[in-house]
């Protein structure tokens, strides 16, 4: 069970029911549960879409696309059934927020799925939960069964004359399945190999039907928007970046944990005030701002508001909310290698630039870190990475390349320090520092 944390700067919207026993449906109802669906049942579909669009809610899985706009791409008329697919395949290294939503407030996700369904005219939805999260799948199975028992799901929901089905689905371990087209392949019982786009899932998705795919946190943000309005939500954040989001602080930080902060919260403040700074009197060297696929920021680049547009301008990404602090005792070559080993492991092999690129980069970085590097390798690592960008069906190739390029560019000296057979300057055998555990 994950430990909950808190900080006075938090604005609790998605996490407002955390720690309050809201997995029980009666408790959820006491805490304003299923009120938003009741309200949405009395609204026109276009009105729901506009409300979500105007709220400035953007995809919390990482892409940051306007959620209402995504919903509006679903054709009104469709011969094939339409579907809602909740992406709960949280696997981006550094990210552990959807886990808390499923653990503490599963009904908010179900409610978000139903509202999305009402908005686009779908009558069923799937909640896909990664295989490792077995205990969360069980929580969700119970939540869905309870909602059926109350008449909130199934035929004639809330006595409205509308039908809506929600089904659970469990994965079996694959990072790539978090990508929307691979997610659909997986749900259809296949290898999670990405599909080419266009057509986009909003037009041709699950079993060929129009499909809305949203991250679990995105869907859990929808009920509060319906209840309190687009303007309220939009004003919580910065322009075009509505609301709050769950930031997962991890790595070299004194108070790791998942904190809900307004969009646009200053990163420096997040690290030093919310996170309590860097442990052991160490200095911050780098930050992964939104999961391992985001280009790293150096300690000099952190005085900025955490929203999608600012991070993009700063040459990185807000990503999935996984903020990982890296202190000055860390070897950045080793860090780059660890990231690359992950993507090499997760590459499905469908697209050659990613399959071969991650493998060669892994091999080169491994040799380099162990002291066998030559000067030419440094440029080669960058060149190989740059040649993966945009050349794959899904963004896994980009996800491997982007952080690598940023590390080579921003920490080139550390690569040079490994040259000519010199041992890694950061390896200190026998002097491993124990980091404090925040409980």
């Amino acid at each position, binding site marked *: 069970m*994950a430990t909950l944390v808190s900080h006075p700067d938090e604005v609790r919207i998605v996490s407002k029911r955390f720690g309050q026993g809201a997995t029980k449906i009666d408790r959820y109802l006491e805490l304003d549960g299923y009120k938003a669906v009741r309200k949405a049942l009395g609204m026109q579909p276009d009105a729901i879409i506009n409300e979500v669009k105007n709220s400035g809610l953007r995809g919390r899985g990482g892409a940051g696309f306007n959620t209402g706009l995504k919903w509006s791409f679903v054709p009104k008329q469709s011969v094939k059934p339409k579907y809602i697919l909740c992406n709960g395949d949280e696997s981006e290294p*550094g990210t552990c927020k959807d886990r808390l939503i499923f653990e503490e407030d599963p009904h908010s996700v179900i409610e978000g799925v139903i509202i999305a369904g009402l908005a686009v005219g779908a009558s069923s939805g799937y909640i896909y939960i990664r295989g490792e999260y077995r205990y969360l799948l069980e929580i969700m199975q119970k939540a869905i069964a309870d909602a059926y028992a109350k008449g909130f799901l199934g035929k004639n929901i809330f006595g409205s004359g509308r039908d809506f089905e929600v089904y659970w689905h469990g994965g079996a*371990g694959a990072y790539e399945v978090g990508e929307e087209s691979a997610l659909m392949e997986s*749900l259809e019982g296949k290898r999670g190999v990405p599909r080419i786009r266009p057509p986009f899932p909003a037009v041709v998705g699950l079993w060929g039907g129009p499909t809305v795919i949203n991250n679990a946190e995105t869907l859990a943000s929808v009920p509060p928007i319906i209840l309190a309005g687009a303007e309220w939500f939009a004003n919580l954040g910065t322009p075009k970046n509505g609301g709050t989001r769950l930031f997962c602080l991890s790595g070299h930080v004194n108070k790791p944990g998942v904190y809900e902060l307004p969009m646009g919260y200053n990163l420096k403040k997040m690290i030093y005030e919310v996170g309590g700074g860097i442990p052991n009197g160490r200095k911050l060297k780098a930050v992964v701002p939104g999961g391992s696929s985001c280009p790293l920021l150096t300690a000099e680049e952190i005085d900025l508001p955490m929203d999608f547009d600012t991070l993009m301008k700063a040459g990185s990404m807000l990503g999935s909310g*996984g903020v990982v602090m890296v202190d000055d005792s860390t070897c950045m070559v080793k860090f780059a290698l660890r990231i690359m080993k992950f993507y090499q492991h997760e590459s499905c092999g469908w697209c050659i630039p990613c399959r071969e690129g991650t493998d060669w980069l892994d091999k080169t970085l491994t040799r380099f870190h162990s002291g066998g590097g030559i000067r030419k390798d440094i440029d080669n690592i960058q060149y190989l990475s740059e040649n993966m960008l945009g050349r794959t069906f899904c963004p896994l190739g980009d996800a491997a390349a982007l952080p690598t390029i940023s590390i080579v560019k921003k920490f080139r000296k550390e690569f040079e320090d490994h040259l000519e057979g010199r041992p890694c300057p950061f390896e200190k055998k026998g002097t491993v520092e124990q980091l404090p555990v925040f409980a």
Partner: protein
Amino acid sequence: MRFSDQFEQRFTEMLTHYPTKRSVLVPTLLYAQDEVGFLSEEVIAEIASRLDLTELDVRNVISYYSMLTTKPRGKFNVQVCRNISCLLRGADELIEHCEKKLGIGHKGTTPDGLFSFEHVECIGACSWAPAVQVNYDFHENLTTETMDRVLDEYRKKVQ
């Protein structure tokens, strides 16, 4: 072959969730593996025939997902996360410690069949690193000392 009643009940229910039979494949394989311990030839043949798939179709899917295995494992599968957040908080030391303690390496199984050991990628416990999953149970904020206690508890479970 026979699975438990719970498996059959869930399998029948899952078939009603989707417009195609094949869609139940991934969760079904994992549930079958939980019962049998691994995806044996017999399990693969059974599931393929139930879903009107070839055994090759099923094997193709199995090889994609990291949790699915066609080889037997120990009763308790110790999975130590080695990704960035855990790495920064001592995953390497934890891995080294477990390997020494269990006397096995990556993907190894102890001779008594009690423990298997694996390095895994991010398990979604980044804010509570370093983290380990034993079968489906999470163990977080670990040190080498608390890791020993975790292993001892599993050992006691079978005594």
